[in-house]
C-alpha cells in the first residue's frame, strides 16, 4: 500500500517546510498551516512515487515481452516483483 512511503513523504514534507523557514531565518514554526499542507502533499507524493515505480516496472516488462525478452526482475528490495499472473 505504500504506507512507509506515505509516512516518509509526510515527515519529509514537514521537515522541508521547517528547513525553508530556517533558510529564510524566521522561527521554525512560522506559517504552521504550511507545515500541515506540506505534510499532506508529501504523503500524496510519496504514495504516487511508489505507484509510479510499480507502473513503470509493469510497463517495462510489457515492452520487453513485446520485444521477446524475459521480464526485468525488480531487484530493489523495496519493490517486490509482483507477478501479473
Amino acid at each position, binding site marked *: 500500500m505504500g504506507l512507509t512511503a506515505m509516512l516518509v513523504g509526510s515527515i519529509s514534507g514537514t521537515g522541508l517546510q521547517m528547513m*525553508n523557514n530556517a*533558510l529564510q*531565518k524566521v522561527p521554525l514554526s512560522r506559517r504552521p498551516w504550511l507545515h500541515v499542507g506540506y505534510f499532506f502533499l508529501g504523503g500524496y507524493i510519496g504514495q504516487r512515487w511508489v505507484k*509510479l515505480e510499480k507502473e513503470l516496472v509493469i510497463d517495462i516488462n510489457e*515492452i520487453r515481452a513485446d*520485444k521477446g*525478452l524475459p521480464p526485468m526482475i525488480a531487484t*530493489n528490495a523495496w519493490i517486490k516483483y509482483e507477478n501479473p499472473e
Partner: protein
Amino acid sequence: MLIFKEIQLLPEIFLGISIIYLIIHGTFISVNNKYLLIQNSILYLSILIIAMFCFLLLNNSIEYNNFQIFNNTIILDYLSFSSKAWIALISIFCFLMVQRYLAVQKINYFEYSVLILFALLGIFFICSSNDLITAYLSIELQSLSFYIMAAMKKDSAFSADAGLKYFILGAFSSSLFLFGSSILYGVSGTTNFEDLKNLFFLTYLEYESIYGVDNYSFVKHVFIDGGLIQFALVFIFVSLLFKLAVAPFHLWSLDIYEGSPSSSTFFFAVVPKLAIFILIIRIFYSSFFEYSIKWRYYIVVVAMLTVIVGSFGGLEQKKLKSLLAYSSISHMGYTLIAFSTGTFEGMQSMLCYLFLYMIAGLCIWSIFLLLQLKYKYSKKQNKDLTDLNLLSKSNNILALFFSTVLLSIAGLPPMVGFLVKIGIFLVSIEASMYFVAILSILCSVISTFYYIRIVKIMYFENSVAGKLYYPIQSNISILVVCLFYFLLFLFVNPTLIYLFSYKITLLLTMTVV
C-alpha cells in the same frame, strides 16, 4: 470528435496561440501614457500557459505509438513526449525563480517572458522533429529567442556584447547544419529521419558501394557514396556540438554566460541541452546508426578533450559564472562519453546523467539567483568567488545547500551525482574504452578541486568578515529546499530515474538490449 492525427500537436498549437495573445496583450498595455509594469503578470501568465501545456501533453493517452504527422516531418513518440514533459516542468521552475531577479535588475520588458515561451516552442519542436528541415527551423527559433535574451539588459555593453557574440556563433553553427543537411539531401534524396533510417540503419556502407533497393521494382542498383555521407555527418555533428558548447567549440559559452543577465544564463545552461541531445539521438542513433563505427572515435576524442578542458579550465576561474560555465562544459563531456559507446546502457546512463544535470543545474543557478549582495558598487553585475566569503556565517542553511549541490556535481557520495557519474564510467568500461574511463575519472578528480574551493571559501575562509547578503524573502525558496532534498533522497532511492530512463531507451526505435 477530434480523431485526426494532427490533434496530437495540440499542446504546441495552444502554446503558439497563447504566445500570439501575450504579444498583443503586452503591447496594448505597455504603450500607454500611464505605463503599467506588467512584467510580473506576464510572467505568471507564462507559468500558467506552460502548466496548461503540461496538462494537455500529459493527457495524450496515446504514448506508445509513433505518430508521424504533417507529412512525416514531426514524430510523436515516447521520447518526444517524456522530454517535452520534463523540459516543461523544468521551465516552470525556471520562471518562478527568475521573477525576483528580474525585478531587482530592472528588466521590465514584458517581451522577456514571451521570448522564453518562443524558445520553449522551438525546443518542443526540436524534441519531436523527424526531418532535417524541421530540426533546423526549430533550432533557429530557439536560438533567435536566446540571442535576444542574452542581450536583454539595455544599459550594459557587456550584455550587448554577449548577445552579438552569441548571434554570430549561433548563426555560423546553424549554417554548418544546413550545409550538412544539403549534402545529405543530395546523396539520398530525402531529409526525413525515418526515410534515412530505412536507407542507412543496418547497411554497412563503404566508399562507393552498390546498394540495391527492393521496394521499387524499377530501381535495381543505386550508387550511394558512403564517404560523402560521413562528410555531411561531420558537419551536422559539429554544428550540434557547437550548440552544446563542447570543446573545441566551447569558447563562446564563457563570454556569453558571463555577459548575459543571470536569468538568461539560467535558461542557457539548463534547458536546451536535453533538446539538442534528443536531436543527436534521433539523427545519430536512430537514423545513421551504422555509421557509428566510423564517428565513434571522433566523438570519444571530442569527449575526452571536453573533459580535460572543463576540468583544467575551471581551475583558474575567479568568477562564479565562468566556473559554472566550465562545469557545464565538462558535464557535456561526460554525457558524450556515455553517448559514444552506442550501447543500450550507454543511452540509458546518458539520459540519467542529463536529467540529473538539469536538476543540479536548476539547484545551483537558483541559489545563485537567490543570493543578492547588500553592498556592491553599482556597475558590478556578476559575482566573484570572493563574494561568497563566509556564507556559512551569513546564512548557514544556504551554505549547506550550496555545498551539497557542488559536491553532487563533483560526483561525491552520498549525493545522487555520484551514482550517475559511476553509471557513465561503468558503461565506458563495459564498452572496453578503458583509457577513456581512466582519463575521465582523473579529470573528475581534478574538477573536484574547484568545487571544494567554493566550499572552503564559504566555510573556512580566514578573512575577518564575510560579505553581507539580503535575507531570502521569496516564497519559492521551498523549491530550492525540495531540490536539495531530492539530491540526497535520490541517492537512497534512485529507482525512479533508472526506470524512467530505461523505459525511454527501450522505446527508442530499433534498440536491442
